[in-house]
Each structure stands twice: as structure tokens, then as C-alpha cells.
């Protein structure tokens, strides 16, 4: 190790500290943004140190540097533009896409290292093992994340996709990938082996994610995120780069914990999700509509809702998947603003899995300028329902299904929002169709509940108009 290498190493350590401090600060909403900037500063330091070291230490070919700069420009521009323009409802698939490219980049780095030595001496185990692992994991996350992104985007069906023999094909692909990886470790000049690992891993990534239901996709994306971290760490081992080892391991471990927490928040186990992809039937996913029985239902109109809201003191808005699907977050925020200006106390009750992925509803509402102090988490919200005059449920269903308190149904045991504790309830959805869990909701036939059938966006707009009349009157 030269003096330069020592300085670069120290810069990497500094970057690592900043990554950790950044992640640490991202735990609380008030410091989260600063945390991300701290992390980005660490990244800038790591990049500059690497460039300086690469120039001093090896120099390199001009054409390679041109390829680098071109690549950075193309990829960077693509990333920044997508990041700037993405609709907040589409965040899950963008995260998955960025995860895919990370895995792909890690695999490409390992491949380049392989190409470099293809004519030279045999690589030592300390390089060949990480190269093999990197190509394996990197390719799986690349193709797997792309499929997950496709599912979330709706390009690929969100339904679990299975076909006869898929399980056997899966096993075969895994065996081929692993076997060729082992062979490669002792035979580091074989291009064929590398290509086989690459192909088998890419196919495996696709096969792994295809059978997973769209609603489970966020957990898989988080898991693949952790795996990309590991792939990057392996790439770091292959080319002896500490920044990649540290940051990769950090994300690998942090991502694993985050995955477990997400799965727990969704009342699912990671195992059952992944194995679900291998043929285990998932009883709770999908589920056909229950018979719509409108006899016990009290229907209300926009005007009814408006009058109730205008004369309430405490209003709780309960947003669900339907609000996200309808992109009605701005309308919800506008309504809340209108009521707040009129002196009414309005809060949001946010279930951890309301929305398209855990925490997504908070992002959507934040986009609509809802301060995070108004977003009540499960426990706070449940403490507040008792004193709430009207709970306005917008496109939510399972997260406020009182049957979760009873055993023997798909939502049993899931922590729910105690919407039925509010003095009165209005549910805004398009029909009596069930939600994700595919079961009926006794809340809808509760005498104190009024059903307001409409699309969330349209329905809220109508309520806003109606409220304005009462407020200005």
C-alpha cells in the first residue's frame, strides 16, 4: 500500500462515516433530508478520491476514460431526469429501477475485472470467489428488480405469474448458476463459464420475481436492494476497493433489517413472500370480489359529506390504496386545508401499509404539502379516533376492517386503524368491491357509516365544492 493508497483509504473511511451518519439521521423526519445530503457528501468524497487515485496510480487509456465519461453522462442524465420527473405514485418502480442498474453495474465491474485477467495469470481465490458471487448476485438483482419494476408499473401483470414446471425450471437454473460459479472459481480463464453464470443468474432473477404478487413487490424490491449492496461489496473485494466493501456491506445489512421491518409492517413474512414465488399458494393475495350486498348500506352524497364535515370539530382522514391509485392526495390535502382554515381540526390516520409500499402514503401526502406532524401513525391515530367526530375513509379498506380483530380470516391479527371508534364514518370508494385481502368489511354496513361511491379524485373534488358553499355561507 502506497502513501496515496493510504490517503485514498482514509477518504473512503470518511465517506463511510458520512454514509452511516446520513443513514442515522434518516431515521427521523426532521433530520432525514440533511441525512441524505450528508450521505451524498460522503459519495462525492469517495468519487473524487477514486478519480484522483486512478489518475495517479494507473493512468489508463484515453478511450476508456472517454467511455467512462460518456457512460456517466448518459446514465447520470437518465437518472436525474427520471428522479426529477417521476410522479410520486410511481416511486416504488423507480426505486426498483435504480436498484436494478446498481446490480447491473456491480456485475459489469466484476466482468471487466475478469476480462482484464483473461489472458494473464490465474486469478487467486480471493479474487475469483468475489467475482463469481458478484456476477451471480448482481445479475439476479438486475433482472429481478427490472421485473419487479415492471410489475409495479403495470407493464407486467401484478398477478403472480406461474406456469407448469416453473418450479423445476427454477431449481435447474439455480443449480446451473451455482455449479458454473464453482467451476469458474478454479478455472478463471473460461469465458463460457462466465457467460453461463451470467445467463443463468439473469434468468433466475426473472423466474424469482414473476410469481410474486404485485402487492408483495415492495418487500422483494427491498430484499433485492439489500442483495445489490452485497453484490457491490463483492465487487469491492474483487478490485480491492474499501469504499465499495464498506458501503455495500452497510446497505446489505441495513437493507436486510429494513426488509424485515417492512414485511412485518405488512403482516407478511419475507420467507412466505419469496417461497410464495416458488409455488406455495398465497391464500390472502388477490381474492375475488365478495357479493355486493347493498341492502344494509346507507349511501350518502357529496353534499351530505360536506355538511357533516363543515359542522365537525375533529376530522380524521384515513387514506388508503385507492387514494394512491386515484392520485387524489392533492384533493385530500385541499379539502383538509379548506376545513382547517375554517377552524376545524383535521388529522390524517396513516396505516403503515396504506398505499403502494410501506411509508408510501406519507410520501404522497408530503408531496401535497401535508406537514408530517399532521400524519398520525397507527398508535397515535387510534388514540385519537375516540374523540373524532367524523372519519373520512378515502380508498382504504383492509386497513380499517374490524374483522382483523377476529380470528380466521385473511386480515386476522393485522393491526388496524380503529375507524369504527369515531362518532361517524364516511367511506369514499367506487363500489362495494373488496380490497387487497378480498374480504368484506363490516364497517361499511355499520349504522354510523355512510358510503359515498365515487372515484377518490372526482369524489373529493365534489366534496370540496360542496364544503365551499357551507363555509362561505
Amino acid at each position, binding site marked *: 500500500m502506497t502513501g496515496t493508497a493510504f490517503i485514498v483509504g482514509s477518504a473512503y473511511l470518511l465517506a463511510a462515516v458520512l454514509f452511516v451518519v446520513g443513514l442515522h439521521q434518516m431515521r427521523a423526519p426532521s433530520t432525514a433530508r440533511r441525512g441524505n445530503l450528508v450521505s451524498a457528501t460522503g459519495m462525492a468524497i469517495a468519487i473524487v478520491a477514486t478519480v484522483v487515485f486512478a*489518475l495517479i496510480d494507473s493512468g489508463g487509456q484515453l478511450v476508456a476514460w472517454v467511455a*467512462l465519461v460518456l457512460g456517466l453522462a448518459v446514465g447520470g442524465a437518465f437518472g436525474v431526469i427520471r428522479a426529477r420527473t417521476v410522479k410520486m405514485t410511481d416511486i416504488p418502480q423507480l426505486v426498483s429501477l435504480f436498484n436494478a442498474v446498481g446490480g447491473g453495474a456491480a456485475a459489469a465491474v466484476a466482468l471487466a475485472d475478469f476480462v482484464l485477467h483473461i489472458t494473464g495469470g490465474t486469478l487467486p481465490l480471493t479474487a475469483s470467489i468475489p467475482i463469481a458471487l458478484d456476477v451471480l448476485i448482481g445479475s439476479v438483482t438486475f433482472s429481478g428488480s427490472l421485473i419487479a419494476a415492471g410489475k409495479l408499473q403495470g407493464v407486467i401483470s401484478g398477478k403472480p405469474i406461474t406456469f407448469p414446471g416453473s418450479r423445476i425450471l427454477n431449481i435447474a437454473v439455480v443449480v446451473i448458476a451455482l455449479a458454473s460459479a464453482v467451476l469458474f472459481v478454479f478455472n478463471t480463464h473460461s469465458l463460457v463459464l462466465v457467460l453461463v453464470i451470467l445467463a443463468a443468474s439473469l434468468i433466475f432473477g426473472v423466474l424469482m420475481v414473476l410469481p410474486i404478487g404485485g402487492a408483495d413487490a415492495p418487500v422483494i424490491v427491498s430484499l433485492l436492494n439489500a442483495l445489490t449492496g452485497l453484490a457491490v461489496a463483492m465487487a469491492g473485494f474483487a478490485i480491492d476497493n474499501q469504499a465499495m466493501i464498506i458501503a455495500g456491506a452497510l446497505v446489505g445489512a441495513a437493507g436486510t433489517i429494513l426488509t424485515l421491518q417492512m414485511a412485518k409492517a405488512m403482516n407478511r413474512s419475507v420467507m412466505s413472500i419469496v417461497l410464495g414465488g416458488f409455488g406455495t399458494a398465497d391464500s390472502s393475495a388477490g381474492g375475488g370480489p365478495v357479493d355486493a350486498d347493498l341492502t344494509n348500506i346507507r349511501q350518502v352524497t357529496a353534499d351530505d359529506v360536506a355538511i357533516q364535515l363543515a359542522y365537525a370539530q375533529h376530522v380524521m382522514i384515513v387514506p388508503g390504496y385507492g387514494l394512491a391509485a386515484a392520485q387524489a392526495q392533492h384533493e385530500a390535502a385541499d379539502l383538509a386545508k379548506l376545513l382547517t382554515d375554517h377552524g376545524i381540526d383535521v388529522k390524517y390516520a396513516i396505516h403503515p401499509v396504506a398505499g403502494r409500499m410501506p411509508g408510501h402514503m406519507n410520501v404522497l401526502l408530503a408531496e401535497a404539502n401535508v406537514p408530517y406532524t399532521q400524519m398520525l401513525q397507527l398508535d397515535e391515530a387510534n388514540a385519537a379516533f375516540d374523540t373524532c367526530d367524523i372519519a373520512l375513509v378515502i380508498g382504504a379498506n383492509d386497513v380499517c376492517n374490524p374483522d382483523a380483530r377476529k380470528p380466521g380470516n385473511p386480515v386476522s391479527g393485522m393491526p388496524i386503524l380503529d375507524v369504527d371508534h369515531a362518532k361517524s364514518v364516511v367511506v369514499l370508494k367506487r363500489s362495494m368491491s373488496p380490497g387487497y385481502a378480498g374480504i368484506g368489511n363490516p364497517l361499511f354496513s355499520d349504522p354510523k357509516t355512510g358510503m359515498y361511491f365515487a372515484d377518490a379524485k372526482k369524489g373529493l373534488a365534489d366534496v370540496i365544492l360542496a364544503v365551499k358553499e357551507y363555509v362561505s355561507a
Partner: protein
Amino acid sequence: MIETLFSNLAIFVLSLLVGFEVISKIPSTLHTPMMSGANAIHGVVIAGAIVTASLANSPAGYILTFIAAALAAANVFGGYVVTDRMLRMFTKPTPARTLTKEDAS
């Protein structure tokens, strides 16, 4: 060789420990931005792309350099920008905004 391996292994294991510990109970409010933020951090693979460029000496190497650079850049730049965009939206209520130490710094 074995010295480097040990040092890298120790770094790897300790970083895993840090990673496990830094994510203790996070409020679900931040699950989405947190995931995106972690995602951006593994964009450090861009360092690998730079090293690859400095060593590449064949057409295959140049192509892989380009691929690695493009993919890594999308990951790192896109990741940080989108995370920042999300987090920028998390605000405290403006009227009740009091000048706390945090805001001042």
C-alpha cells in the same frame, strides 16, 4: 495478499454490524425514503466503474466501462436526487414553525 484479505474481511464484517445497528426501529413514515436512500448508497459502485476505466485495455473492457459507468451513474445520481425530492416534501407545519436549534443550524 492474505493481509489485504484479512483487512478487507474485517472491514466487511464490521460494516455489516454497523448496517444492522444503524437501522433500529424506524418509523414506517420513512420506510420509502429510507429504502431509496440506502439504494443511493450502493451507487458507490461508481467507484468501481472509475477503477474499471483506469485499468481497461481492450474493446470489451471499454464497453464494460461504459455499461458500468452508465448504470452506476443512474443509480447514484438518480438515487440521491429522488430521495432528496421525497424528503424535501416532509415539512413541519409552516404557521407553527418555531425557531428550534435544528432549524437554526
